[in-house]
């Protein structure tokens, strides 16, 4: 009796091990994958690209993780999480945090601009326009917010828009007055979340990228090019805006200066799936591929994509070199 009992145990263990074995391949990440860490604002277009790409390469599985762009970099640097491609809502994050230790190059592939989002149920929704929005943001009882400037480029960019608006509309004190009406509680880790707060009526107005507003079907106020951070021809004007964000340690700070919203993408050095990642980038940066998807979703791509120098171009994998031009 005892013998059969222990025999069953052994059987059970064998079966359990056999059941577990196929998973090991997945756990070890050895199947054909592309792991992409990306800014939250790229979630919807990248989901679309994933579908198209996987239809072209049925054997490859695209795994995406969305977070604020700085957090993407943190996951690579601090957590050493395996990652093939990182796409940031601010190409400077790649330059500042990943190059040279974790990446060699940085391709600028798209732009965006900031808009003020709301819904029809937002307070004063019927009277807001591109002339009076800053007065409404300063009104008592209006709940507006932006994402955390320390974690998400969209957060410090929202503050920059307010600073630039003060210059542009020539209303001294505009920045202080509006920010005074935004308690800390209205700051969220990542800008995409703000959309849900608007839609559930927990917030009246929120700063968001245009593409996100379009994709989430929010109402929005378009701002003049001088302040929306969407037109690089105004980079000199944008440069007046300065926001202090968290530095590398608590109680240290670094200054972010205004410049046009430019998205960057890079491949992580020693990435686990180099070949597949290259194939994905080839598709993503193709004007008929990923760039077209971006355009359809309200986010203007650079056609073709850009790198700043000849040296940067020659450091790219060969298959990508003909997809970029040199432009500062």
């Amino acid at each position: 009796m005892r013998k059969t009992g222990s025999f069953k145990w052994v059987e059970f263990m064998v079966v359990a091990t056999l059941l577990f074995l196929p998973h090991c391949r997945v756990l070890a990440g050895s199947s054909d994958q592309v792991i992409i860490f990306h800014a939250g604002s790229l979630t919807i277009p990248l989901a679309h690209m994933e579908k198209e790409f996987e239809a072209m390469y049925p054997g490859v599985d695209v795994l995406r993780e969305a977070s604020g762009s700085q957090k993407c970099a943190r996951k690579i640097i601090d957590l050493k999480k395996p990652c093939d491609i990182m796409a940031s809502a601010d190409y400077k994050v790649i330059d500042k945090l990943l190059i040279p230790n974790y990446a060699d190059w940085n391709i600028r592939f798209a732009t965006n601009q900031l808009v003020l989002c709301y819904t029809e149920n937002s307070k004063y929704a019927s009277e807001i326009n591109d002339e009076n929005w800053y007065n409404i943001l300063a009104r008592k009882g209006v709940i507006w917010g932006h994402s955390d400037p320390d974690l998400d480029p969209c957060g410090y960019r929202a503050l920059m828009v307010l600073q630039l608006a003060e210059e542009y509309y020539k209303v001294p004190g505009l920045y202080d007055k509006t920010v005074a009406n935004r308690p800390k509680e209205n700051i969220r880790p990542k800008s995409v979340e703000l959309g849900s707060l608007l839609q559930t009526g927990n917030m009246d107005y929120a700063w968001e990228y245009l593409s996100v507003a379009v994709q989430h079907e929010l109402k929005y106020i378009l701002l003049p090019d001088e302040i929306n951070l969407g037109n690089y021809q105004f980079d000199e004007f944008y440069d007046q805006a300065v926001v202090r964000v968290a530095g590398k340690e608590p109680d240290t700070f670094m200054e972010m200066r205004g410049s046009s919203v430019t998205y960057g993408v890079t491949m992580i050095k020693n990435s686990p799936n180099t070949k597949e990642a290259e194939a994905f980038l080839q598709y993503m940066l193709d004007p008929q591929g990923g760039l077209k998807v971006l355009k359809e979703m309200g986010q203007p791509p650079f056609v073709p994509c850009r790198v700043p120098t000849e040296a940067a171009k020659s450091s790219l994998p060969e298959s990508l070199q003909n997809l970029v031009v040199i432009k500062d």
Partner: protein
Amino acid sequence: MKREAFFWISVSCGLVIMAFILLPLIQLFTSPSLDMLKESLSDKDVMRSIWLSIYTAGMAALISFVFGTPLAYLLARSDFRGKRLVEAVIDLPIAIPHPVVGIAILSVAGKNYWFGQILTELGVRIMGSVTGIVTVLTFVGIPFYLNATKAGFEAISPRLEKVSRSLGASMFSTFARITFPLAWRSMLIGIIMCCARAISEFGAVVIVAYHPMVASVLIYERFEAYGLKYSQPVAVWLVSISLILFFLLRILTLHKVEEK
């Protein structure tokens, strides 16, 4: 005496599980230097967030105690149609993914919903407020209180209560003088379980309230903004508190077994 294979299988499984739980925690505890630990103790934001965690978890447990005790008693003592359904509903918060809890609470609290509209008119704010945090923590913690307390009531023979009632004591005084003194330990365990669950909550809280920051949210924020090095010391302090809570729980349950 020769041990059977079963014994050794049990022991080795146990060792694997111990290592599985302890290894990451030991790594966590030994990574930050003593200076970093001390420094984070004198960091106002850290202390404020840890106190807020304890305070909100305590409030959640208090609310669970006040509103949950009668329900637990009812479930332990009476059978009615749909009782299984009520019990299943009580367990639901354990099974729902945490962010979903946060989203659900926010959608009820938003002014696009009638309940949220009432709240707005009363001046109660859920998003980004201590009220919101307590709401979330009560939601995720109350099943633990209810289940522990219910089990405690079930373990007391209803005969004792009937004797008391037959001697003329009112239901309330029977509860206060017979049931409560016998069940208080289970209730306390329920409170501790509820607190522990509430302190560890992150996913639902971060959706409802990023600021003011509870400790788990601060750990996340520190990690994102400054990296592992600055989030670990806060985590060590938070884990220490959880450890103390569970240690208390074990001591209390141990006494209970010995008494029997």
